[in-house]
């Protein structure tokens, strides 16, 4: 949509910008909660061990570390009983055949029970949080209500709808601050060694949340690129330096191309080690380098640029966990960054809601700017979504799409090697991962899941001593 708006040269009204920011802010809150509790937590939390917990001690632990507004020994006893009934039924459902009891799980049973209870609370909270999207865009998932030129929800710019949004935002942000962040810190305190595992080298963020029509200057989460972990050397990236390589990807050709000239012509071959093609993902590079994108990249860029809220959050978290700033470049740093930006972005949403209220109050309900399709044009839309940097490139000819290419976060993070043999970020991050049991590589899941991949990917584990190759599918 931003790519088309850029191509046709339309500036969206203030209200449309604010509503898009609100919808997208809600997406960040929602996605990050679901990622932490439902797609990543079980890499650190042993649900079965929660059955051994003492509910009274769990309640005490929760009172000390968590701000959750449900708790107490009766609550934890009930949760434990519910899990016990479930396990005793012999039908373990989605918890079947996992790595329970693995030596790399470090939480005591009480912490596991607290996390399991919050896993359930978070499932319910996320279903309610999604209603923010329905208010201004009809439904979630797959919002409808965003169109080239603005948004369609002019009829919903009413006090009752805005109040409904505000109420759900408040409940969601309260969960982020009182439950998600304390849980994140509690779990992290048992896994500090992961502050030195799973890091990468280069980081890029297109940035997101324009607070005026000036981009990138007004972006709340700023745009920037960091090479070789040099925070002081943070630079402003330009879209012209993006290329996508296909040397090792199942597409025709060898040459790296800029997305405006990009092609997607499949050419599948059997998997061959050494120099063959091995991935459906292309290999994006910024100025020739692979870059990690996502929460950690955004937080590092913001931190390097002296972003007030992000800097305070990062510094206080490092202090609480008593780890050095270098611990950010890790699996733990990535998982923590996701939580910290949820706080900053979620807090900022209140300001946007109030801006919308002020506009409506003074009678400004403009939500759409009309436009005309040119015969020929090209455009680019750059932003950051919860998983990372997203770019869309469109070329229009005869009022129709002549070429459309997008480079999405999981392409940046999970792309393969390029023509110079340079590794993709996840490939790089996995090097040196300690693995206690090659048949149950829980540790690999931790790093891969920390990127929040939007892809089922194949990771091959090789035991150097036994020379045995294990294939692990990360789901």
């Amino acid at each position, binding site marked *: 949509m931003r790519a088309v708006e850029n191509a046709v040269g339309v500036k969206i*009204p203030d209200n449309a910008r604010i509503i898009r920011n609100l919808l997208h802010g809600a997406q960040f809150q929602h996605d990050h909660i679901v990622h932490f509790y439902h797609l990543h937590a079980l890499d650190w939390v042993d649900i079965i061990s929660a059955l051994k917990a003492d509910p009274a001690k769990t309640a005490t632990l929760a009172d000390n570390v968590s701000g959750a507004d449900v708790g107490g020994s009766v609550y934890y006893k009930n949760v434990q009983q519910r899990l016990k009934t479930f396990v005793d039924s012999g039908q373990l459902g989605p918890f079947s055949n996992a790595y329970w009891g693995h030596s790399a799980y470090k939480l005591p049973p009480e912490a596991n029970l607290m996390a399991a209870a919050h896993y359930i609370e978070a499932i319910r909270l996320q*279903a*309610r949080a999604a209603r923010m999207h329905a208010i201004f*865009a009809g439904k979630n998932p797959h919002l409808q*209500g965003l169109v080239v030129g603005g948004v369609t929800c*002019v009829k919903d710019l009413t006090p009752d709808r805005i109040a409904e949004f505000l109420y759900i935002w408040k409940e969601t942000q309260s969960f982020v601050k009182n439950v998600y962040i304390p849980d994140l810190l509690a779990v992290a305190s048992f896994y500090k060694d992961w502050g030195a595992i799973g890091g990468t080298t280069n980081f890029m963020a297109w940035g997101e949340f324009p607070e005026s029509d000036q981009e990138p200057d007004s972006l709340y989460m700023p745009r920037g690129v960091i090479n070789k972990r040099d925070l002081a050397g943070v630079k402003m990236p330009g879209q012209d330096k993006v290329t996508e390589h296909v040397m090792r990807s199942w597409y025709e050709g060898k040459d790296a191309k800029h997305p405006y000239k990009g092609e997607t012509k*499949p050419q599948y071959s059997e998997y061959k080690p050494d120099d063959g093609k091995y991935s459906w993902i292309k290999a994006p590079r910024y100025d020739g380098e692979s870059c990690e994108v996502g929460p950690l990249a955004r937080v590092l860029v913001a931190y390097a640029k002296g972003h007030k809220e992000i800097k305070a959050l990062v510094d206080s978290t490092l202090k609480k966990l008593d780890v050095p700033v270098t611990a950010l470049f890790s699996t733990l740093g990535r998982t923590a960054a996701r939580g910290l930006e949820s706080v900053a972005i979620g807090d900022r949403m209140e300001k946007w809601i109030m801006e919308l209220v002020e506009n409506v109050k003074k009678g400004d309900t403009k939500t*759409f700017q009309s436009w005309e399709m040119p015969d020929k044009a090209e455009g680019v839309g750059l932003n950051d979504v919860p998983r990372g940097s997203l770019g869309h490139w469109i070329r229009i000819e005869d009022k129709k799409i002549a070429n459309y290419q997008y480079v999405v976060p999981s392409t940046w993070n999970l792309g393969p090697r390029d023509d110079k043999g340079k590794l993709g970020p996840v490939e790089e991050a996995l090097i040196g991962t300690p693995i206690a049991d090659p048949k149950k590589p829980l540790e690999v899941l931790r790093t891969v899941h920390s990127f929040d991949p939007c892809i089922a990917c194949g990771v091959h584990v090789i035991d150097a001593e036994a020379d045995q190759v294990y294939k692990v*599918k990360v789901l």
Partner: protein
Amino acid sequence: MEKENAFYAKLEQRGVSRRNFMQYCTYLTATMGLSSSFVPKVAEVFAAPKQRPPVIWLHFGECTGCSEALLRSQYPYPDDLVLEILSVEYHETIMAAAGHQAEEQLKMAVKKNKGKFICIVEGAISTKDNGVYGMVGGRTFLEIAKEVCPQAAAVICMGTCSSFGGIQAAKPNPGGYKSVSEVLGIKTLNIPGCPPNPINLVGTIVNYLLLGKLPNLDDKGRPYFAYGKTVHDQCPRRSHFENDEFVTEFGSEEAASGYCLYKMGCRGPDTFNNCPTAKFNDGTSWPVEAGHPCIGCSQPDFWDEMTPFYEEQ
């Protein structure tokens, strides 16, 4: 009665009042098109079956939006569905197992529940070049579907992709993607939508648990209770259509007045679904209420047949 009271006590423990629960059952019963005498029976279905019915959920060519949609179910919440109502034996997004252990789990679950499990399929199946354009754990979607689906008690297609091919099958369809019923030559129960409203899957499952059979289906395999009428026929803006009151530009005074979106390309007249009555996310809204024309996302071949969007057809 004793069992029932124990059930309500359990609900209260989880913060659900008896009143809320009965309201939900009434809503669901109405969505399913059953008479109100079924309300207590619907409640019974949720009251804790001894052996939870096994479900195997397969992901093929899709975006996981249909799974996400089910996770937005509020009555019952997803944790109730997973812990108390169903036994979700295999589901790639939510299962804790990975890699070999996940593949092994699929094999074991199929073997153990042969002829008894409900197979829910999300996504279309690649058929070109023996299906190499879609694989899980080294096996093609095609192989997995051929092996697993025929052993199920019923195959439910969740979403437009598994039901009708969806975006994967849109022209020029480079991967040769097709719907499950086309590929396997079987009849499937289809719950199309991009993604569908979770209430329609829950309603189908409750029908199955309650009456021991699947709900009545139309010629495209869709349950009548959800897909029996067009969006247009149930649309609260229908009177504006009759009165020639149309929106011709987004953000306009007509749009603010909630006029008919037909001239903005609304496909409500050609689309069979219950969006206007069931609405999404706990009845919060639906696309037309948010001022956006229906794009016909639950109809077969909608990417080819319903486009260009935003233009009157």
